[in-house]
């Protein structure tokens, strides 16, 4: 064994110390880095002075965002202890955004949900039971018919945020330039077909009469009701058949082939944002939609628009008072009471009603709605007048659709597009729709 000389021993000891110091320094640096990355933005929503921050999400466009923000500002003024942060997305991407947030534990405290997704979310335990918040959430002033549709197993999980019904949005300026009158209220589908053909012919083929309703799940619902049928049974099973779909699609395909309805590539642009759709672009003189979206249609074009009822079949329009969208509180929210307070404000308070206008349809609280209808002007007045004129023809509101309805909406668009582009026949499309719908409902 080599003898270690005293100097060498000191050298070794020194190097040992250096080594330990070096590793110690590296270890400290690593620990510091890990701590620093872990300390990114703390998101505690209750600060020390008792102020609560709520998050509120909805879908829509910039027009709707503006009126919603105005309503929220009113709420914050009346409740200085509560601050509301907001976010919104277009309808198409909204549900996937919300799902991801819920899964990541960042669900917004108050969220706007679509009727088609209500049972989906409720069944998965996402929505809080609002019957527990009856101290701050007063639902007696709302239409009980509508409130009932927000209940699952007797518990209130969603509150209607607006009342709407189906309509045909018609471009009056375009019609005037073509020298045509709008479609007769109370006219049949065949009357509509004739009218739409006139629009097509008079405009030299540049403007279709109506945006093809074949891809619209809502239009099919009205069609079913008009024919004395339904989309779902009261037990939540599929009630439509392949032959119902064939009837509907054969009719719309006729419209499309004769030019009365928009061609396939134009219909493919109907995504829920009026500014991108055929009516705003002058490619169609009428478009099927809900009257809660009327404000956005008006904002998307400089032409004058008007609301007309749906064409009838054996005297029925198939229209009903429908919750345009609903508000729910996340079941994991740490501030359910404050979220319920905000919800209560948004559906009951006159200041909210004034700010929101008809951006989401008729205001939920009936007495506030009526007093506002008296002083409404412009676009809002058109919606109020339309609803008032159609009230007596409404059929009873059906219950919220079963889980999977939201997916059938996109399935309709997809299958009809394949038909419209000539990739499959109406019969094959109907069969394909039925089998895919069964798979979706059985999941």
């Amino acid at each position, binding site marked *: 064994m080599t003898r270690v000389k005293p100097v060498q021993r000191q050298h070794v000891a020194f190097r040992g110390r250096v080594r330990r110091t070096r590793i110690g320094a590296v270890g400290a640096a690593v620990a510091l880095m890990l701590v620093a990355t872990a300390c990114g933005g703390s998101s505690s929503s209750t600060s020390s002075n008792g102020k609560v921050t709520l998050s509120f999400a909805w879908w829509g466009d910039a027009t709707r965002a503006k009126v919603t923000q105005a309503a929220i500002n009113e709420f914050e003024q009346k409740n200085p202890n509560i601050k509301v942060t907001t976010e919104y997305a277009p309808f198409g991407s909204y549900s996937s955004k919300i*799902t991801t947030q819920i899964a990541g534990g960042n669900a917004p405290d108050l969220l706007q949900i679509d009727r088609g997704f209500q049972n989906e979310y409720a069944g998965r335990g996402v929505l809080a039971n609002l019957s527990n918040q009856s101290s701050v959430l007063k639902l007696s002033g709302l239409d009980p018919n509508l409130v009932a549709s927000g209940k699952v197993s007797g518990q209130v999980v969603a509150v209607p945020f607006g009342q709407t019904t189906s309509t045909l949005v018609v471009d009056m300026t375009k019609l005037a330039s073509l020298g045509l009158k709008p479609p007769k209220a109370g006219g049949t589908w065949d009357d509509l077909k004739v009218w739409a053909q006139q629009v097509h012919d008079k405009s030299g083929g540049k403007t279709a009469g109506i945006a093809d309703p074949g891809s619209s799940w809502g239009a099919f619902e009205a069609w079913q009701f008009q024919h004395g049928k339904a989309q779902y049974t009261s037990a939540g099973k599929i009630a439509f058949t392949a032959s119902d779909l064939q009837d509907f699609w054969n009719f719309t395909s006729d419209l499309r082939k004769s030019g009365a309805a928009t061609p396939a590539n134009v219909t493919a642009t109907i995504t829920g944002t009026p500014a991108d759709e055929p009516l705003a*672009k002058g490619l169609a003189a009428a478009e099927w939609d809900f009257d809660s979206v009327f404000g956005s249609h008006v904002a998307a074009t400089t032409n004058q628009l008007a609301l007309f009822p749906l064409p009838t079949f054996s005297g029925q329009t198939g229209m009903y008072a429908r919750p345009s969208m609903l508000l729910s509180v996340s079941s994991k929210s740490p501030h359910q009471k404050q979220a319920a307070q905000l919800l209560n404000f948004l559906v009951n308070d006159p200041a909210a009603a004034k700010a929101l206008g008809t951006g989401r349809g008729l205001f939920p609280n009936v007495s506030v709605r009526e007093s506002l209808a008296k002083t409404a002007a412009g676009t809002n007045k058109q919606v109020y007048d339309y609803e008032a004129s159609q009230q007596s023809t409404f059929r009873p509101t059906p219950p919220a659709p079963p889980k999977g309805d939201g997916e059938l909406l996109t399935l309709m668009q997809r299958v009809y597009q394949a038909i419209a582009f000539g990739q499959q026949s109406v019969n094959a499309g109907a069969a394909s729709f039925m089998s895919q719908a069964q798979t979706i409902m059985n999941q």
Partner: protein
Amino acid sequence: MSKSSVQLGTKPGVRSTTRRLLKKQGRSGRTGYVFLIPWFVGLAIFTIGPMIYSLYLSFTRYDLLQSPTWIGLQNYRRMFTSDPRYLHSVSVTIKYVFLSVPIMLALALGIAMLLNRKRRGVGVYRSLFYLPSLLGSSVAVALVWRSMFGQNGSLNAALSVVGIHGADWINSPTWALGTIIVLGCWQFGAPMVIFLAGLKQIPVELYEAAGVDGAGRWRKFMHITLPLLSPVIFFNVLLQTISSFQAFTPAYIISGGQGGPADSTLFYTLYLYQKGFNDFQFGYASAMAWVMLAAVGIITAAIFRFSRSWVFYGDEGER
């Protein structure tokens, strides 16, 4: 001086020096690993961990809102037997890869050869051609593409100047995929730069010698450029194929997330996203992801295997 060190023929203290050197290397090696710890931790937490979890999820039914339920191989079975949209998405993706990769690489090689001159301003051209590949897969560019190629977009406006009535490039099933392929090929800048580097390595004397022997441009290209460039071509083919299989952003933005019109732009990754985030079927989406990993792995291995017949590495002698 001990007997042993004389016997070993080493100078005094060398053995201890060697040992000291080895120890030092060991020490610096260990320090290196200590510095790598954050990266290892990141790899484990953000890459390997989720991959293992995703493999587990692929055997479950999971809707993201409730806990996963084990269903075994059902997802995989469903994928291949009762999901026509899945097979359609595979065919759309394969169409995209087999069209965009050769076109992009041909473009890259062609432009690289043009830019392989010492002309004035060639540096500016190189930067300009490289720019699209930096921006290319971004959402912003995809949005611009979508509006440019629409029925009333700038492309149709330009075509109408010469009297051609353009089709609806975005909203018709015949052309929508083509629009995305064009967007993919437009990003040829990155492979172009790599080709340029490869071209610069080919000795000019070879071209001169071939010219003396009477070879024209085409023969020079086929018998000098291509063989000597084959490792670079192989590299680019491999990388572009792998990244084309993963293309998502252009398809998502241009089709508005639907894969339309009529599922003509339903890329594999887009269908995976739809299944996961729109239909609440994360188990199925995870299974799709693992099938894709296996498929791309097999294709990569095939490319490697196939490359032995045409890639010439220059320093291996006769082949």
